[in-house]
């Protein structure tokens, strides 16, 4: 039992389950899943569909934060990806052409790789502080997206494009994409030395460089990867709504993503990171959003409620806080802390 509790994903998972259960009295059929119109339908399915973009962005953000950086431009990158894809599709005579949609997707993702390269270049080559370097694209990127859409919302009526953010094999397509992304990331970071290198760059960039780690190259790679995932998230969001809204797509998602990463147990100081934790963190935030909608909180109180829950979640996440909270109830003195810290080898590959 104590091993389960001490697992680094225990608290995020427990919080998520608690939040889901909290919905039950308000929505008795909260856990019900039906098949409607040939696809799965239910609150949990909605959480997955609407939460996928945040999960993907949080995954990319995890690696960036692990190297001691931060990427504020993910929301703008999302907007650019959606805008480019919809712009291209809307110019086609046949919007339902699979080929055209594939080209649109490739175009959008290629642009995102370039944007990631730009961020990485600023941070790793020029040496700009990550928060400033990515702030440039956060501001300018939305302008670029607006230029692409001309300030209007582009609506597309393309069935193949709608699949990306919709359903495949009756399940939300996002589930497959997230699974693929998580498996790929776990394989790359936990089965090869890449994860270790990322953590070492985050721990001490200069020392890693002196030890022979190509710190700059690792940094550029994680920014590209983050932008790529943000691009996929942007495509999913835009496909889900069948439109490109340069002004609102991915607005403020960078903050939610950073929060998801932190809730998932990755410290902002860099070094260690938890992929499964970030997925859980993103799911917690999306569930919280759904909870606010279902339990009938007046909209003026949304932010206060959200903030209160987030503060509680962060406190529960803190081992120090838990120890202080439990101290009065404990007869024996708590076991020395270092013992718990040593269980953090990157062996747990559960997600």
């Amino acid at each position, binding site marked *: 039992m104590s091993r389960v509790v001490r697992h680094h994903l225990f608290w995020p998972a427990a919080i998520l389950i608690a939040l889901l259960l909290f919905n039950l009295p308000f929505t008795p059929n909260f856990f019900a899943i039906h098949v*409607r*119109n040939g696809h799965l339908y239910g609150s949990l399915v*909605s959480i997955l569909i609407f939460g996928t973009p945040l999960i993907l962005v949080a995954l990319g953000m995890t690696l960036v934060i692990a190297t001691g950086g931060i990427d504020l431009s993910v929301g703008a990158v999302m907007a650019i990806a959606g805008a480019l894809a919809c712009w291209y599709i809307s110019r086609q005579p046949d919007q339902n052409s699979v080929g055209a949609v594939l080209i649109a997707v490739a175009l959008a993702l290629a642009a995102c790789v370039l944007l990631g390269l730009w961020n990485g270049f600023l941070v790793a080559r020029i040496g700009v502080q990550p928060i400033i370097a990515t702030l440039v694209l956060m501001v300018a990127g939305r302008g670029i997206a607006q230029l692409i859409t001309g300030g209007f919302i582009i*609506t597309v009526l393309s069935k193949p494009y709608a699949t990306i953010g919709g359903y495949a094999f009756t399940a939300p397509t996002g589930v497959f994409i997230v699974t693929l992304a998580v498996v790929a990331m776990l394989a790359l970071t936990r089965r090869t030395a890449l994860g270790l290198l990322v953590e070492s760059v985050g721990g001490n960039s200069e020392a890693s460089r002196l030890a022979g780690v190509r710190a700059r190259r690792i940094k550029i790679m994680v920014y590209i990867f983050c932008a790529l995932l943000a691009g996929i998230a942007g495509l999913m969001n835009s496909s889900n709504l069948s439109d490109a809204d340069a002004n609102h797509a991915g607005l403020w998602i960078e903050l939610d993503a950073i929060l998801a990463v932190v809730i998932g147990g990755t410290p902002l100081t860099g070094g260690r990171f938890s992929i499964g934790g970030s997925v859980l963190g993103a799911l917690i935030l999306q569930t919280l959003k759904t909870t*606010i909608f279902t339990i*009938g909180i007046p*909209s003026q109180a949304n932010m206060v409620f959200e903030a209160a829950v987030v503060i509680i979640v962060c406190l529960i996440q803190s081992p120090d806080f838990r120890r202080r909270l439990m101290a009065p109830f404990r007869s024996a003195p708590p076991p020395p802390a270092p013992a718990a810290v040593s269980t953090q080898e990157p062996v747990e590959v559960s997600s």
Partner: protein
Amino acid sequence: MISRRALLSGAVAAAAAGTLAACGKKESPSSSSSGGTKQITLGFSQVGSESGWRSANTSSVKDAAAAAGINLKFSDAQQKQENQIQAIRDYIAQKVDVISFSPVVSSGWDTVLKEAQAAKIPVILTDRQVDSSQDLWVSLVGSDFEIEGERAAHLLEKVLQGATGAVNIAVLEGTTGSAPATQRAAGFKKVMDASHPDWKIVASQTGDFTRDGGKQVMAAFLTSHPEINVLFAHNDDMALGAIQSIQAAGKKPGTDIKIVSIDGVHDGFVAMAAGQINAIAECNPLLGPQLMDAVKKVLAGQTLEKWIKTQEADFVAADAAAALPNRKY
């Protein structure tokens, strides 16, 4: 499609021209020497380009100025009050004939409005109100959001005509605290309290005026309140998002759940023509001609109404197909 693209490139060209004109600060006073009638110069500061509605609003002002032969100096404040104040000060320095702007926020305009008054330049507000003293500005050209809410409620009466049974309304509110959101809600409630005590709002939440917001909130509503059979959305975009969620839930928008919204954007009319939205109360961004009219009148020494309300119409699904080709935004 073609007309929209033409409109876009026109807007881009006009924006470029506007920027150039705003950069060259020295030309304006000499423009009066052309004899006969003096060309009017209007300095206009737009909020930004945050929505399709706003883009349509911008094009309308530019097109109407060109049509009326008014020299327009246009600047985009990009949602920042300091940019807008700077633009207004520039216009004062350039001695334009009239200044007009859509205030980003309602407070904090006293100083710059007094500067304009000292320079004897009349100020006309568009779209939104300010809380400064009324003698600092001449007139407001814009919509009455509360009336829009009332009109939406009356449209719902029409839509529900002949229907029996409980009326369980879900409301998708605009951005919390914004004037359109609070005033549209107030207008709707006024009509409801006065003549429809049987209508019941079972769920109400903000969708931030976006499709994404409307879709997510509606998806949650449909599981927690399966009894919903009417949707009132504070704008079309949220209604469009909600339609997708209603379909995903296996219900038919417009039939199983009646939908009334406000705005009248092009995509809203497409959905209405398809029977997915039952009625739309228009909120007209095309106030350019009324603004130019007001500019001419104020320079001719005529007194203006304090609030020139934009001309707006109500549409039900039956009108949608006929009105669709004329929708510009």
